[in-house]
């Protein structure tokens, strides 16, 4: 009884809200991206001014949602997938080739994925307070050898950064990864479900180091004028992550969707990334970055598995991680 009431209210609500003009462009995006504090609102405004259309973000866990919806998805464009879940996303078969030129991107790696374009990138890294830690670790061995250090990381089964660290260690140590995890384990204060809880513990002073991105200090430098947070740069190299956008093949607005994909690589969009997403834009010359981005540490070596490799090693790496940390 109550249900029929709510669904009726829902239908009514739907009827009221969809009588605008033409169909809006529906973009699936993660919560953080479209929230007031992410780059979403500015991007929406900029694109709407150009296209004379409506852009609507639909937020949530993008990938599970696409997998549930499959080919019936209402999305026209999907933004905010990342390089470690590309394979799974491609398998849904809902994405169309983007057909864009990705030769002149400003990323440390080549990009030739036919379906997805990157819009920002960064490296996974440990962030620390440079007033407290003077003897900065140069690699994982240093980190393991540090006395009295407590780090917080994220669970690779529920968090992008957690998965990133897993692949980072795997790409350096291969079969020795499990042993590295075992030795790292005493330094791990706790493992959180997502990045947010971890970073909160770090800024509260609970943990000495937190797994995040090399670009995280940019927020503190620019928004808080605080230069005490730094990323520890490891000589073994850092694992790379890009966030991606893709066009849905079944879109009922193919032109608008393509226009948005093009817009993603435009300077207007890209210049919103550094201070909207606190990461590097995928296509913006270094001199157009905010000045303080120059203060960020940059790895010498970039580590990355191909989507297919990630798919192959992920399960095994997770169980290594589980057994190492469950001891």
């Amino acid at each position, binding site marked *: *009884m109550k249900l029929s009431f709510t669904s009726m209210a829902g239908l009514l609500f739907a009827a009221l809200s969809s009588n605008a003009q033409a169909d809006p462009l529906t973009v699936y995006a993660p919560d953080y991206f479209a929230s007031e504090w992410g780059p979403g609102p500015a991007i929406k405004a900029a694109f709407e001014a150009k296209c004379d259309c409506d852009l609507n973000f639909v937020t949530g866990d993008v990938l599970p949602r696409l997998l549930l919806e499959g080919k019936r998805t209402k999305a026209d464009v999907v933004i905010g997938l990342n390089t470690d879940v590309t394979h799974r996303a491609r398998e849904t078969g809902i994405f169309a080739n983007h057909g864009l030129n990705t030769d002149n991107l400003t990323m440390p790696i080549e990009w030739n994925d036919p379906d997805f374009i990157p819009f920002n990138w960064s490296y996974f890294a440990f962030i620390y307070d440079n007033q407290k830690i003077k003897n900065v670790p140069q690699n994982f061995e240093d980190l393991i050898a540090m006395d009295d250090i407590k780090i917080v990381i994220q669970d690779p*089964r*529920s968090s992008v950064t957690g998965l990133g660290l897993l692949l980072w260690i795997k790409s350096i140590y291969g079969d020795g990864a499990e042993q590295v995890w075992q030795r790292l384990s005493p330094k791990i204060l706790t493992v959180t479900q997502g990045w947010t809880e971890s970073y909160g513990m770090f800024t509260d002073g609970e943990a000495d180091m937190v797994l995040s991105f090399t670009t995280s200090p940019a927020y503190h430098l620019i928004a808080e004028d605080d230069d005490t947070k730094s990323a520890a740069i490891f000589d073994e190299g850092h694992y790379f992550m890009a966030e991606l956008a893709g066009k849905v093949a079944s879109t009922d607005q193919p032109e608008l969707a393509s226009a948005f994909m093009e817009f993603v690589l435009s300077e207007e969009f890209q210049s919103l990334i550094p201070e909207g997403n606190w990461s590097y834009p995928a296509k913006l010359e270094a001199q157009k970055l905010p000045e303080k981005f120059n203060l960020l540490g940059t790895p010498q070596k970039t580590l990355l598995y191909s989507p297919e490799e990630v798919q192959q090693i992920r399960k095994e790496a997770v169980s290594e991680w589980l057994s190492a940390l469950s001891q």
Partner: protein
Amino acid sequence: MRRYSFKHSSILGAAAAALILFMTIGTLGAVIYRADGLTGISAQDWHVIRFTLTQAFLSALCSILFAIPLARALARRAFFGRSLLISLLGAPFILPVIVAVLGIIGVFGNNGIIAKSLNIPTSIFGFHGIIVAHVFFNLPLATRLILQGWQAIPSESFRLAASLNADCRKVLERPMLRAVLPNAFLVIFLICLSSFAIALTLGGGPKSTTIELSIYQAFRFDFDLSKASLLGIIQVIICAMTVLVLLKITKPQEPTTGLDRPVEMWEKPHPVLDVLWIVSAFIFLAAPIAVIISDGIPQILNLHSSLWPAAIRSIWIALLSAFMSLFLSLCLATWIVSLKTKGKWIEFIGALPLATSQLVIGTGLFIIIFPFIAPYELALPITATVNAIATIPFCLRSLVPAIRDAEETFGKLSDQLGLSGYARYKILIAPRIKRPMGFCIGLSTALSMGDLGVIALFAQPGGGTLPMAVYSLMSAYKMEEAASGALLLILLSFVLFWIFDQWGRKNAHS
């Protein structure tokens, strides 16, 4: 026996029970249907199941063990602020989990108040951290349940014991505890079973993974619906068995009368010990809340303007779900009372929401709704409905005894006067249950205020709730503003709880 006056209640009650079954078992069924079969239980799953049971068992045990002396101290001491303290006992229960966890870390963590002021290294992470957090959340509940037992002992019995020079503990208190404790233990065990964020965050590693968390992980990257369904089924079975035991051992309870007056005892030994218990419990419960407040205060005056719409949206959802929950609970509770002993089966259905994973409910609903309408169009009504369903078990616990009491006292008179349907509700039931009603609305409102939403599947931007806004602020590195948002959240939760609870108390006739 009194079968004449309950025609309406059985129709509405059956509809409410059907809705609960749909939202719990139905959604689980949808996920199983979509999963194309179930996988077997892996060794890792067994570990997760064992861990879930162990932590819930120990959390419930510790909560009870600490609650007994605290409840006794509160029962026999009259002091200034006693009723305020008892009201405050409701506070941890309605705190949003993520906020509370940061508060607990702020007290007991490496960099917490204790470590700083005593200058000793402490760590909250590990198995003990989970227990501390669960005791923080559930000690108040346990204390309230046990305190009710104490207050239900008639003061004449204490006088009689005193005049016979009998040992109060032996003749009155122990039998009461034997009746009350198993019940309180199982309720808390049940709540801790579905613990989600606490276990992983404070447990310190992947060995502290509960079933609910495993379900989340199965969804998140693996999108392994068969594993999620399997774990969902296991969780329902464990909880259902617990509820069955609970219903078996629960005797019709005394209605919750006021906890406002101390018990009249002739002998009141160990005053120092009592004071110690009360003071330390107060510090234990108040300190994390104090940390949250002090973290939030710096930015509270220049809160981001967009938090206000989120706050207002949250209040609407919370109120909507609270009133839905009350309506559904009333329908169920009157039906349960009218069915006498057979009502236990309906009580069982009413407890099912405790057993079902929020994530399974959300995903199941998504699967059911998606072919017909874009789920985000229904984000708000669905969030409200799911929250309403989730709080029904708590509402039933306080409504059923009160309605039973009203029916026992005035049922025959009402039958004789021909009070049936709405007139019976208005004249007999409603005035007699104002106090638990106020408590129910308050509790449901506060619980849904703090809820993160069904799951992200139904969210849409500009439609987020306050907890989601707090989370988004944290995701955008804005930790201080997030702390203020969290403070706003708990202030609103408490104020709403307090308003409704007071309304119930003010209007109670007893």
